[in-house]
C-alpha cells in the first residue's frame, strides 16, 4: 500500500478511476477488470510467504480430512483443507477449520505445572526434573506392587497399581510405544483409551 499525499480533488478523481466500486457501478464487470484496483494489484497471497508446507490430518474426528500446514520462520501461518483429498476435497467442518486457532491458541500450556501433595497452587518445574521424578514414581509404584505369580502358581507378571488412559487422539506410533513400554516393558494391565467412551 502506498501513502496518499494528493489533494482532495485528485483523490476523488483517482477514486473514481482506480477504485473498483465506481467502475462496477458504471457497468464494468465485477468479475473482470473492475474487480481490481491499484491496491488489490499489490496484494499478495499470504501463503506465498510460507517457507514450509506440510501435509497433515485433522486432529478432531475420525473422518480423517487432510489438511495443508503453511509455516514461515518456524511459525504456523495457515491451515486449510487439502484439495487433493478424496475424503474432504479441500473442505473442513467448523472443528477442522478451527485447527489453526487450536494450534496457535495463546492459552496453550507451554510449561510443566506441578502440584505437590496437598498443595493449593501450581508450581512451574523444569521438564527434566519432572521426567526424572515421574520415572522414579513409576518405578517405585511398580516395584511395590508387582505380582509375579498368583497363589496357585500361575505366572501373571503384572502390576495392578499403575494405569494409563488415553490414546485415541494420539498417533499410531505413540499408541504403539505406550503399549510396548507400559505393557510389554513394565507389566501394566490397566491400559485404556477413548475406544470405550
Amino acid at each position, binding site marked *: 500500500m502506498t501513502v496518499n499525499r494528493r489533494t482532495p480533488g485528485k483523490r476523488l478523481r483517482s477514486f473514481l478511476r482506480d477504485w473498483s466500486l465506481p467502475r462496477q457501478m458504471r457497468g464494468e464487470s465485477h468479475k473482470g477488470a473492475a474487480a481490481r484496483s491499484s491496491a488489490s494489484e499489490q496484494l499478495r497471497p499470504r501463503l506465498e510467504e510460507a517457507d514450509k508446507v506440510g501435509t497433515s490430518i485433522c486432529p478432531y474426528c*475420525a473422518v480423517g480430512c487432510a489438511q495443508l500446514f503453511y509455516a514461515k520462520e518456524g511459525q504456523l501461518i495457515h491451515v486449510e483443507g487439502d484439495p487433493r483429498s478424496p475424503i474432504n476435497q479441500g473442505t473442513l467442518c467448523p472443528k477442522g477449520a478451527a485447527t489453526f486457532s487450536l494450534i496457535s491458541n495463546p492459552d496453550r500450556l507451554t510449561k510443566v*505445572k506441578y502440584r505437590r501433595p496437598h498443595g493449593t497452587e501450581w508450581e512451574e518445574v523444569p521438564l527434566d526434573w519432572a521426567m526424572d521424578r515421574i520415572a522414579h514414581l513409576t518405578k517405585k509404584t511398580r516395584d511395590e506392587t508387582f505380582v509375579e505369580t498368583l497363589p496357585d502358581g500361575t505366572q501373571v507378571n503384572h502390576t495392578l497399581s499403575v494405569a494409563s488412559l488415553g490414546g485415541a487422539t494420539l498417533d499410531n506410533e505413540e*499408541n504403539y510405544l505406550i503399549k510396548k513400554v507400559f505393557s*510389554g516393558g513394565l507389566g501394566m494391565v490397566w491400559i485404556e483409551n477413548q475406544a470405550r467412551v
Partner: protein
Amino acid sequence: MAQWDLANADAVLVMGSNMAENHPIAFRFVMQAKEKGAVVMHADPRFTRTSALSDIHAPIRAGSDIAFLGGIIRYILENDLVFKEYAVRYANLATIIDENFIEAARNEGLFSGWNEEKHSYDFDTWQYQGMVIPSALAEHYLDTAESYSEMTKRLHEGPPPDDPTLQHPNCVYQILKRQYADYTPEMVERVTGCPKETFLKVAEALARNSGPDRTAAICYAVGWTHHTTGVQMIRAAAIVQTLLGNIGRPGGGILALRGHTSIQGSTDIPTLYNMLPGYLPQPNAFKPQARHFDQFLDDETIPTGWWHNFPKYITSLLRAWYGDSVGPENEWGYQWLPKIVGDHSQLAMTLAIDDGLIKGMFLLGQNPVIGGSNSKLVERGLGRLDWLVVRDTDEIESANFWRKGHLVQSAERRPEDIGTEIFLMPGELAGEKAGTFTNTHRLIQWHDRVVEGPGDSRSELWFVYHLAKRLKALYANSELERDRPIRNLTLDYRAEGPREEPRADDVLREINGYTWPEKKQVASFKELKADGSTACGCWLYSGVYPEDDDNRARSRIPDGPDGPGTHLGWAFAWPANRRTLYNRASADPDGKPWSERKRLVWWDEAEGKWQSPDEIDFEPEKPPHYRPDWDKKPEGMDALGGDEPFIMMPDGRSQIFSPSGLKDGPLPTHYEPVQSPVRNPLHAQQDSPVAKKWAREDNPLHALGDPRFPHVLTTYRLTEHHSGGTPTRGVPHTAELQPEGFAEIPPELARQIGVRNLDWIVLSTPRGEVETRALVTERLKPFEIDGRHIFQVGMPWHFGWEGYATGDIANVLTAVVGDANSSMHENKALTCDVRAGRIRRSRHRR
C-alpha cells in the same frame, strides 16, 4: 466400507448417529448418493440436521434400536426378501445349529445355556451341530478345563452341516424366523414409539434397494455403541445387511463413524487392556491354556481361515518387542507379557482408582472428568491417587479437579485434603509432530512435522521414549527376573534435533515389520514367520512401509475424476491396502459380478486370478470352484472354498448366527437399558442378563419404575465441540459458535414444570444433579408406552468448567454400567428427573 463409497449406495440408513452434525464431511457422500437418487433415512430419538436432510425420519425411543432392527429382520423374512443366493452361499443362513439351542424369544428373553449360578451363559448349545466354532479374541472357554483346541478340530474334517433348502428346523434361517416372529410392525411401534407406517417405509426402502443390482449402506456411531446392548445393535445391522447381500459390495456395508481422529488406530494398535496389536489376545491368567506359550498358541490358533496365521503374528510381535533376548528357549518372552485377571476397562478402572487399588496414573490426551461415566466418582478417585501425570494442550478438568472440581466446590473436600502429586505437561498436536492417524475407514494417513510445539510441549512419542530410557537406566543393574522385560525391551529409534525427538518413521517401520536380524522391510504380512526370522509390531499394518524409503501412509495420489474411485494411491488402508473388506462377495459364487452396476471384483479365467480396481480381500489365485480336500484335513485358508469370502471366519461365512465371541447371545434380542422407565414389552427378562452393573453406594442404580426418575435421558455431541471439549471449549472460534451448555426438553414437559426457553433447569439421577439452560424444542419426541406418556431429554456432554464455553458436566448424571462384551457404558439411554431452577444460589465460576 470407505466413506466415499457411500456415494455409490442406493439407500442409506443412518442410525445411532447424527452424521450430518458429527461427521459432516463424511455426510457429503450421503448427500452425493441422494443427488443420484438414493433414499436417505434417519432412525434416531432426536430430529437433527441429519433428519432434516433425510427422506425419512423414524423417531425411536433411546435404547430401542434392536426392536426396530429386529422388526426389519422379520420384515425381510416374512416377505421373502432375502438375497438368497448371497446369504445361503456366503453366510451361515443354512447352517444347522445344535439341537438343544433355544431362542430368547421362546424362553422369556434368555437363550439356552443360561447358568443362573454363574450368572453367565454356557455356550455349548450355540455351536454348529456337532462342531465347535471358535472366535478370535473370545473369552468363552475360560471355564473349559480340557483343551479347547481339541474341540474345534472338527473344522478340519468337513464343512459345517447345512440345509440349503432352509427347511431344517434348526437351521439358522428357521431360528431367525422364530427369534423375530414377535417383532411385528405393531410391536416395533409399541417398543420404539415409531409409527408403524414410518417403520415399514424404512424396511421397505432398504429391501427394495438391495439385491444383485442395488446396494444399501448403514452408518452408525456411538448412538449404537453406548448401550449395554450396543454390540448386539451392530450385530442386528450386520444380520440385516447379510440377509440383503450388502457386505463387500460397492455402496453396501456398514460404516462405523468413530469419534477421535485416531480412535481406529488406537484400537488396531490398542492402548486397550485386552488386546495386543492387530487384534491378538492379551493373555488371560484364568484361561487354563494360557500358562505356556505352546498351549497359548494351540488354543488361540483357529484351525481354519485366515486366523490360522496367528502364531506368525504373535511370534513376530514378541521379536519386535524383545529382540534377541527371546527365542524358543524362553518361550519367546511370552511370560513377560502381563496377564490380565479380569475386566481392566475404563469403567472398571474408575472403580479401581476409587478403591485405592490403582496408585499412579497417566492421562495421555484424555479428560475422564468430562468423558468418564459418573463424573463425581471419577473425580473422587483421582483425588485418591498417589500420583497423576496429565499430558494435554490445556489445563483440563482432570488436572485441576483438586481446586475447581465438584468436591472442592461443594466443600466435601479442601485442596489440602487431596494428596495426589500431579504433573501437568504440555503435549504436541499433529503438525508439531510427525506420525500417522488411522481414520474411521481404516485409512492410515501420515502427518508431517511442520513446526515445533511451544515451550516445553513434547509429543507422546518423546514422553514415552524418554521415560522408557530413564526407566531402563534405573533398572540397568537389576538382576531380578521381573525386570528383564523392561531391560530387554527394544528401543532402537533414532532421536533427532536439540529436543531428541524420536523418529516416528522408525516406529512405523517396526510396526510394518522387517526381517530379523537384517531389518529389511517386509512387503506384507504374508512374509511374516513364526520362527523368529521376522519382527513385526502390528501384522495388520504390514505393507504400510514396504521398503525402507517407501512410506505409503504419506502417499497422496487420489484417483482422477475418471478413475475407479478406490483411490489406492491415497494413503494406505489396512489390511494390504484393501478399501472394501470381504470384496470377494461382490462377485457371485462363480466369480462373476452380481451385476454390471455393482461390479468390483471378478474372476479372470484366462489369467487365472481375481481382478479388481481394489486390492482383493481374498487369495488372489484361488479359483471360485476350488473346494477343500477334506481327506487331507486342510488347515487355514486351504479349508475355505473359492466361494467363501469371509476369510476371517473359520468357515469363511458371514455369521448371521454367532456361535462364539459374544457373552450375551448368538443373536440380538431386545433388552431395555439398565436404567429404563418401562418394562420390557417383549419378554420377562428386563435388561441384558449379563450387563455389567457395578451397583454400589457411590454408583447407585434405581429399581425399575422408580417414580423419582420418570424421563428418558440421552447424551449427545455437537458439531462445534469435540468429545471432552479440550480442543474446542478453549479455542475462541469453536467456543463462540457454541458458547454454553444446555439440555433439550420437549415443550409439554417445559409447560408442566413451568419453564421457558433458556430458563435454568436441574437434571437429576441417583448419581447426582446438574444445572443447565433449557432448550425447549420439539426435536425429542415424547412417546406412549402401555398407556404412559414418557418424555425424552437430551444433554450434550462436552461441557465443563474450563475454557470459554462452559457448562455443567453431563456425566455427573451417568452410571458406571457396561455392555458385557465391550464394557462400553450406557450413556445414550438412561433415566432422569427435570425440575425448574438451579442447584445452588451462588456458585464459584471460573
